[in-house]
């Protein structure tokens, strides 16, 4: 869809991919009732990778990343996150969830809590950190997403872009090793998309492992090291961004790219 330019130098030297495996998905399948949403998904993500997942609506891309922190349950195959296999064991699930941050399309901030309390809630209640320590770190991350001056406001008083930045800070407060983004800019006005993308670029430069479902092809070109195209529950094509955009192999990819890049 839109291609917001990231008009700053990205320090490519910081974008290092290590050999360590962060996420390993093997032959994963999922059904909603009779509907086969995810088909034989296999994907290995190394630490430090920035992966953009794209595809037409209903292709299963959101479902895929929601399986990684078990917001959705898969029925076949394995998902191993940080060496822990996702099974129905609740302890494993909570452990993985506290290590994997997630940002949603509609931010999903807690409207009854202030921005600061949104950020400190999980560290205090899940990690049992002292309040002071949690608040200090929350302020640090709010500073980093440039919204520290709004810390005492409630989410309802912020713009969409500001809310999404708070949501990113909230996830970071748990010191996640992996961040999942589920269409983080799709609900935003054009002028707010950029402020969120800037924060995501910053995050990439810290070496964070990121999987982003997004239609921001500018972000994919400049930040991602791999682009995955999905259609009808399958991974159709994956490649480095340069190759992916300039030399798509499959017809479906070509069609998709022609549709989203034509305007």
């Amino acid at each position: 869809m839109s291609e917001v330019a990231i008009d700053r130098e990205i320090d490519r030297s910081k974008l290092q991919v290590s050999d360590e495996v962060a996420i390993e998905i093997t032959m994963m399948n999922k059904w909603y009732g009779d509907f086969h949403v995810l088909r034989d998904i296999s994907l290995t993500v190394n630490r430090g990778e920035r992966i953009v997942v794209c595809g037409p609506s209903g292709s299963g891309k959101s479902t895929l990343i929601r399986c990684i922190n078990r917001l959705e349950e898969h029925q076949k195959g394995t998902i191993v996150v940080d060496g822990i296999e996702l099974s129905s064991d609740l302890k494993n699930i909570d452990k993985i969830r506290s290590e994997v941050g997630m940002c949603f399309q509609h931010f999903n901030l807690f409207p009854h809590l202030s921005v600061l309390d949104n950020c400190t809630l999980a560290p205090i209640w899940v990690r049992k950190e002292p309040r002071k320590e949690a608040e200090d770190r929350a302020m640090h991350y709010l500073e980093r997403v440039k919204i520290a001056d709004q810390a005492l406001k409630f989410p309802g008083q912020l713009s969409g872009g500001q809310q999404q930045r708070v949501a990113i800070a909230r996830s970071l407060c748990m010191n996640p090793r992996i961040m999942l983004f589920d269409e983080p800019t799709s609900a935003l006005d054009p002028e707010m998309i950029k402020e969120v993308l800037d924060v995501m670029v910053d995050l990439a430069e810290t070496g964070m492992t990121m999987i982003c479902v997004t239609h921001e092809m500018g972000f994919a070109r400049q930040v991602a090291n791999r682009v995955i195209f999905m259609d009808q529950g399958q991974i159709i094509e994956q490649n480095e961004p340069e190759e992916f955009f300039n030399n798509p192999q499959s017809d479906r990819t070509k069609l998709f790219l022609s549709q989203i890049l034509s305007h």
Partner: protein
Amino acid sequence: MSDSRKPFVASGDIPPSPPPSSVVGPIAWVRANLFSSISNTVMTLFGVFIIYSLLAAVIPWLFIDSVWNATSLSDCRSIDNGACLAVIKERYLQFIYGFYPEEERWRPILSFFLMIVAVAPILFAGVPRRVLYLSGLYPAIAYWLIWGGTIWGPVGVVLGLVLAVVAYRLITTTLPAVVGLIGGGLVLVLWWLFGVEIFDGALTSVVDIGLPVVESSKIGGFLLSLIIGVSGIAGSFPLGIALALGRRSNLLFIKALSTCFIEFIRGVPLITLLFVASTLLNYFLPPGTSFDVVLRVVIMVTLFASAYMAEVIRGGLAALPKGQYEAADALGLDYWKSMRLIILPQALKISIPGIVNTFIGLFKDTVLVSVIGLLDPVGILNPIRADQNWNGIVWELYGFISIFFFIFCFGMSRYSQYLERKLQTGHG
């Protein structure tokens, strides 16, 4: 007009200016809301006429021509033609206490004021948190004050809770929480069934601290309404939350249990349940256990209201966007923490009007206990109206009861509005 179609560039900022006096101020309000059109003007005048007629009838009746000093209705009528308030003056203590012994009436009064103190920290954030200990102990204190008897009975009941918590702690040091809950519950039930009596007997023989016993049959009037209403409200709220969560649970057994309970209780009239409480329940209880009738009624009213409460709260839970549940999950909060910190605060806030609605309904339903012979304010009416002196008096008595209920119900309504305003956090 033609100018506005030409290409145009703003030459500068237009400074903000105050609105014209025709859109702000009391006169503008009156004009806009009361006399904005001919039909509205007619309606306004008609409304004013109705209000005037009502006041013109009520004020002389209640304040000017009313009779405070008389010994019977005919006496009243011979003095003046207004309200015969002498009956209220003569009987108001009965309306408040029922037949509670006169020399012991300081006990309900003390309980009432302690209740205000105990409820304050729950209702208002500004009250010191330490008062909550009193709130926790209040049911036992109030029970002892109102019914009297030895102090060791209520102490024993509270002690049961302490024992249950200790048992839970001890068990969970080695075993999982579920075993702890079952063990704690078992200790509680066993202690309440057998332990309390022994404890009570033993300590009473050593140190006999007690108040004169007041039978339930003596308790009546607004005192009884408040006992049933306040206990019902305090009990049905947590029970309703538990049932609402149970009905949305993924655990089939808990879900089925909650659903059956809610549907059964909601499907039966309250009066039926009250009759069960007053007569049938004795058949189901082990022989020899005497279960106070007021206590039985309180339990039934609580169960009845909790079913409604559960559905109101379930509505609030369903109204929350799915994203809130997901965000809480994604941060690694477990079920209880996400309910307590994220879901319930929001769901309960959404449900405030419905919850208060249920509370008010419950409080007014307490007058139904008169059908099983308890002397709530309506039950008190009958002996008064059967009295030769006051035979035929209606308006004054029902009006008096209505005012009492109105004060409490209106208070609850205002409080709920205050709470909604307080919990308002922006337009999100």
